[in-house]
């Protein structure tokens, strides 16, 4: 099996606030990320697709097609956007790197038809990133 990875960057704003928490609890749990004016990151997304190369083309999947999917589903929807307000899949959730990686997995997984989505790695900064991988265990949330 071969894994093919495509990488892209997007910049977006977010902040963390749980309406069920008091103001003090929001500050304690989320720290600086609770600032209601929001703040931003340059996210780096690595999308890995696994499969066997097609003997006719030598390709696991058409990377141009993957690029178009990522442009349509990620760049156009999230680049220079505010994640709290402009990404409906995050409504009612805290837009952490964990939640955003789950949302990206759910958006992209059904759109990959050659090979299968193997891993999403989302960097919020060079020092913080989340891996989302296929897992036989049922996703409870």
């Amino acid at each position: 099996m071969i894994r093919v990875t495509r990488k892209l960057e997007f910049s977006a704003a977010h902040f963390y606030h749980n309406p069920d928490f008091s103001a003090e609890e929001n500050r304690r749990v989320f720290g600086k990320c609770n600032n209601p004016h929001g703040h931003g990151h340059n996210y780096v997304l690595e999308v890995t697709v696994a499969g066997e190369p097609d003997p006719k083309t030598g390709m696991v999947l058409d990377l141009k097609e993957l690029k178009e999917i990522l442009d349509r589903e990620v760049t156009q929807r999230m680049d220079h956007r505010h994640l709290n307000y402009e990404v409906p899949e995050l409504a009612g959730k805290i837009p952490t790197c964990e939640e955003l990686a789950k949302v990206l997995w759910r958006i992209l997984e059904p759109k990959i038809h050659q090979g299968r989505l193997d891993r999403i790695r989302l960097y919020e900064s060079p020092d913080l990133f989340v891996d989302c991988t296929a897992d036989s265990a049922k996703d409870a949330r």
Partner: protein
Amino acid sequence: MKLSLWRRYSFPASHRLFRAEWSGEENERIFGKCANPYSHGHNYALEVAVTGPVDPATGMIANLADLDSFVQQKVLDAFDHAYMNEQIPEFRECVPTTENVCRVIFQRLAGFPHAHIEGVRIEETGKNSFEYAAPSNP
């Protein structure tokens, strides 16, 4: 799907690869430049992976403040600017190769109370890195 959160830290430290029961010649043959008796150092980059359910109230696998303070207390306070052969007790019995540094750091972090420590990865230089994974999934 399964989610893992990775956090990256760094610490400079020094080490010397040698075994006291081996001759100088044998140490040099096996460990090369790393056997230099004056020791040498690296800027180590440490990546720690945690996994577990995402708390719907916070959107987090683990609060980074909790992870940072645990890693600081269990690892960085001891390893940062240390001569590992002398100042990390675990290396009195084994050679501080980065393979062993991975295992020792993993063992120090395994008791993190807020999420499962899935593995650690250490870059010794830009050219080599080592990874140690938990023996089984939670």
